[in-house]
């Protein structure tokens, strides 16, 4: 825990203070990490979001049909996706895919003395290794979640169109009517918080590996388990803050 707070502090220093002292971060490693963390996750995220959209629509259609209110399916799908399902499930995918990979990569570097070598070359490992991953995650997770929202809504529309005889305009109207901009924003705010938690937990686990390959394995598991827990708890807290307190 102490390590984790220290990591966050030095991260804040390198992201927000060092650039004003003339130590800018380089763009190319950030872009490389964005491709790795974000772009390569697109197919998985799209598939996840599509299946969620479809299942949400099917389940809500069944329940709403009993009330004769299928007309509200788009509303339900959109709100559920934007507010909760999109951010949470896509964060799960990114934790499993990118968080674990970051922890394993940094852990391997730690046990093969690479991080020590960086320190000895007077290169700060936080600046060199963690800042690019952090910034990449902070941009890419929200981007993935916005993409996921669209794909999920498309999945909902597929169900409505094929099974419930909605026309396109009807679906879009329903979707727009039910959701205000705040639904989208709250999802994006959540995703930024998730991104912060996921990447700092993964980096912290990787940087503090002890022992050899076994330690790397443990750190990878830890990054996933702690990342998921932190993400779900913060999601609950943010939901209270955004939708219950108002």
């Amino acid at each position, binding site marked *: 825990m102490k390590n984790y707070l220290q990591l966050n502090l030095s991260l804040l220093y390198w992201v927000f203070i060092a650039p004003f002292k003339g130590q800018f971060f380089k763009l190319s490693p950030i872009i490389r990490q964005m491709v790795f963390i974000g772009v390569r996750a697109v197919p998985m995220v799209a598939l996840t979001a599509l299946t969620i959209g479809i299942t949400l629509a099917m389940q809500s259609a069944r329940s709403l049909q009993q009330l004769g209110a299928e007309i509200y399916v788009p509303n339900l799908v959109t709100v559920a996706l934007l507010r909760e399902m999109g951010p949470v499930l896509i964060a799960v995918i990114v934790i499993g895919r990118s968080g674990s990979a970051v922890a394993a990569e940094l852990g*391997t*570097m730690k046990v*093969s*003395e*690479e991080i*020590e*070598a960086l320190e000895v*070359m007077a*290169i700060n490992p936080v600046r060199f290794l963690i800042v690019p991953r952090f910034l990449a995650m902070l941009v890419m997770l929200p981007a993935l979640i916005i993409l996921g929202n669209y794909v999920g809504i498309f999945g909902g529309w597929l169900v409505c169109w094929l099974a419930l005889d909605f026309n396109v305009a009807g679906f879009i109207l329903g979707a727009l009517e039910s959701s205000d901009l705040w639904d989208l924003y709250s999802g994006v705010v959540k995703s930024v918080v998730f991104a912060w938690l996921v990447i700092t937990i993964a980096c912290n686990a990787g940087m503090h590996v002890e022992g050899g390959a076994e330690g790397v394995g443990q750190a990878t598991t830890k990054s996933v388990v702690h990342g998921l827990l932190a993400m779900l708890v913060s999601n609950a807290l943010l939901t209270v803050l955004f939708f219950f307190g108002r």
Partner: protein
Amino acid sequence: MNTTADQPVIEVADLYRTFGKRAVINHLSLEIYRGETLVIMGGSGCGKSTLLRHIIGVMKPTSGSIKIFGEETTAMNERELTGIRRRFGMLFQSGALLASLTVGENVALPLIEHTKLTPDEIEQVVKDKLEIVGLKGFERMKPAEISGGMKKRVGLARALALDPELLFSDEPTSGLDPIMTAVVDRLTLDLTRKRGMTAVVVTHDMTSAFRIATRMIMLGRGSIIAQGTPDEIRNCDNPEVQQFINGEADGPVPLNISQDEDHPHIAPRPLVTARGRFHNKTP
């Protein structure tokens, strides 16, 4: 900051470090002067790498003091250490190349980070440094694609990239063939004699040790058993030293460093624990 000729470049005083209860470095003191090539010898596991790690500041001692270029490093924070670290190079026992970068990028890394050279100039320096370690034209390979001895030499090229005043090498010649060993030794000699670099070299290779050393230290059980010029060491009448430099199996050096006294709860009945671990699922 200024070090005169008679002031030691490195001053280690009463260094003490324990892992658990075991003292790996036991009240060790030594001084290293400008232009010297100090060779540190000693059996495997006697604490040579650990000593280097303390001197370069990646490990902190339990007690004792370390001064580099006249400045106390044990109490320094990362930012203060940075200034000193730019002035020395270190070759790790494992090479410690960054696996995600190519050989050329590894050597270029300190130059990119700490100098204002243009990309063309950096490329030229990288080429030169790789050439002096006999690796011309390997810039584009990844560390995973080259042999162990080649990794060592890339690590050496990287350590030399900034033309350091002080070089630490942890077994620079292990894994090298005799010819490459001679090349690396000559490089060390050139740098110390012509450029006034100070070198601290850990090695098990006695031929190489006697070729480059101006002074030698033999470590055992965490402290210095013997030290002196190569001639003094060769003629030293300490039986442990004689056994070591002549490479004899029988002699006073203990073969196994026993941990029993320190970890009584780990040592007994290892086979029983192993059986419990691997066979508990059999019916």
